[in-house]
């Protein structure tokens, strides 16, 4: 028994050296692909949620994402819905769009902002959303921000 344990121990020690040699050439790539293959996603409070629909406008589009609800009573980010106006370079100086979030044909929000100072006004047309009057980031669930090639707006839900 003692002998077998020693053999196993020494085998493990040698295997460690083999792992070192394999790490930069094989293991690192395999592990990376393995993690990517788990189909995990970034939490929607950071990513903004899944894309629900894309609304085409004249020269730009509005990417509407699914609402991100509260999933835990301790969660500190209030529920919100995210929209992205893209590409930012082709937006007019003053944007004012009525947005149908749930695809029922009725506008849910009137979103207005100026692209230079990012001063945002959101007027709900249907209950379920809170009005917003801000310039910049109030919280993770209430903000307007320039992100990559778009302007992201988050409106808190009631």
């Amino acid at each position, binding site marked *: 028994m003692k002998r077998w344990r020693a053999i196993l121990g020494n085998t493990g020690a040698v295997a460690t050296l083999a792992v070192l040699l394999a790490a930069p050439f094989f293991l690192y790539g395999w592990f990376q692909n393995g993690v990517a293959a788990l189909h995990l996603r970034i939490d929607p409070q950071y990513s903004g949620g899944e894309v629900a629909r894309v609304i085409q406008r004249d020269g730009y589009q509005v990417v509407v994402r699914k609402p991100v609800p*509260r999933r*835990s*009573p*301790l969660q500190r980010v209030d529920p919100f819905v995210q929209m992205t106006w893209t590409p930012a370079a082709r937006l007019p100086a003053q944007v004012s769009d009525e947005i149908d979030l749930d695809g029922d044909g009725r506008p849910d929000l009137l979103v207005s902002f100026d692209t230079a100072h990012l001063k945002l006004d959101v007027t709900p047309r249907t209950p379920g959303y809170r009005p917003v009057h801000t310039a910049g980031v109030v919280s993770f669930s209430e903000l307007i921000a320039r992100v990559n090639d778009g302007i992201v707006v988050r409106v808190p839900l009631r």
Partner: protein
Amino acid sequence: MPAGGLATEALLLGISSGPVCLASCSPVLLPVLAAERKSVSGTGALLAQFLGGRLAGYLGFACLAWLLGLSLNLEPRARILVYGLCDAGLAALLSAYAFGLRAAPEKSCEHGCPASRARRFSDRYHTFAPVSLGFVSGLTLCPPFVAAGVRAAETSSLPLALLFFAFFFVGTSVWFLPSVSLAVVQRFAAVAVVARFTLFLLAAWYGYAAVIILGRYFLHA
């Protein structure tokens, strides 16, 4: 809908909501189970006490809401108040419980000094700590609970609503059963020390959360 169908619906809703309930109750439940260092049956008994308290919280809140004619889908301000009060309650209860944990019983002072009174209170509280912690956890309006409440309110009577809640509760509780396996750590004496420190840290968190949430409530009154 017949009672059987309602019960099945509630059970399935509970099972699908279980991960959220487990995640939000675990900070309160798991350190307590670990701290007691009991056998599997002892840990199971503690879990049953916690879940019993949680059920009482669910049903009590649901009864109250039904009788007052309130929707469980509370207005944001009311929800903030409930969260804040529950967090404050949990901070106090966790602190009292952690304070009462110690390796060996101490001699209490015969002169009734404040430290001794606090120690006696903690000792007395220790017995019903799991139930009270479960009760306060049950009062927090977690989204699955609200969804279940809204659905229960659509039933025709209070007994059916309570039946719905009870089966919903059973469904969520299935996810809590593996926590009995914490009994494996009972052989490590250090677990009690770690659990005590953890409870103080968690109490600090809940206390901070209560201050911020209640501060927000009263400042925006």
